[in-house]
C-alpha cells in the first residue's frame, strides 16, 4: 500500500515529537502504529511522572525541559501543539506519577470519520 506523502510526513512528525517527549520526560514508553486504508493511528504510551496540568502543557511555549534538553533544540514548548496541529484527531490523558497516553489519528481518506 502506498500512502500519500503528506500522510507519511505528518505521521513521522507526530511520532518523532512523541518519541522526544518520552525520552525527555518519561521513564520508559512504547509507540504503537496502526495503518489501515482509511487512516494511520499512532499511540504513545509511557510510564513516568505524567502531566499534572494538561491545559498548561498544551499551551504553546510552556515547557518543563531541562537545560540539557534545550541545548539539543528541544523544549520549546511546541511539541504537544505540533502533535495536535498535525493530527486529524488527538487525545491526551495522563495520571500524575503513572504516565501519559497520546492517541493520534491521521486520515488517509479525508471523508473517513469512523474514529
Amino acid at each position: 500500500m502506498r500512502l500519500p506523502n503528506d500522510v507519511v510526513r505528518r505521521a513521522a512528525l507526530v511520532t518523532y515529537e512523541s518519541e522526544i517527549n518520552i525520552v525527555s520526560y518519561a521513564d520508559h514508553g512504547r509507540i504503537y502504529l496502526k495503518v489501515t486504508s482509511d487512516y494511520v493511528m499512532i499511540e504513545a504510551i509511557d510510564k513516568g511522572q505524567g502531566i499534572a496540568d494538561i491545559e498548561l502543557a498544551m499551551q504553546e511555549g510552556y515547557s518543563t525541559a531541562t537545560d540539557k534538553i534545550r541545548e539539543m533544540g528541544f523544549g520549546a514548548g511546541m511539541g504537544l501543539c505540533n502533535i495536535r496541529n498535525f493530527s486529524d484527531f488527538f487525545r491526551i490523558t495522563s495520571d500524575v506519577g503513572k504516565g501519559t497516553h497520546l492517541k493520534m489519528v491521521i486520515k488517509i481518506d479525508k471523508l473517513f470519520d469512523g474514529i
Partner: protein
Amino acid sequence: MATLGEIVAALDLKVRSGEDKMGTEVHGGYTGDLLSDVMAGSKEGDLWITRQTHQNIVAVASLKDHAGIILAGGAEPAADTLEKAKREGIPILVSNRSAFETAGMLFEMISSQKTGRSG
C-alpha cells in the same frame, strides 16, 4: 529559485555531504534552532539555516523533505550527524557567515530570481 550548486557558489559554502544533490532546485528557506518550530513552520524543499549540529537535524530535514541544511557561523556537523546525513542523502553545507547574513543573502538570491523570471 536557484539550484543548491548556485547557492553554494554565491554564498561561498562548504559542502560536507550531499555532493550529488547540487542540481536540486530551492524555492524557499527557513531559519531556526528550535526543532519543533522548524517542523511546524518549514516547508518541503526549503533550505534550512541553523546553528544546531547534532544528528537530530538530519531527522528533521529528512522528515520535512528539506533541500538541505546550512550550518551558520562556521559550525561543523558532529561526526555522527555527518555520517547520518551521508546515509540519508541530506546535503549539509557550512557557511562562515552568521545565520542573519546567510538568510539575507539566500532570500535575496531566491527572491530576485523569482522576480526575474516572472518579468
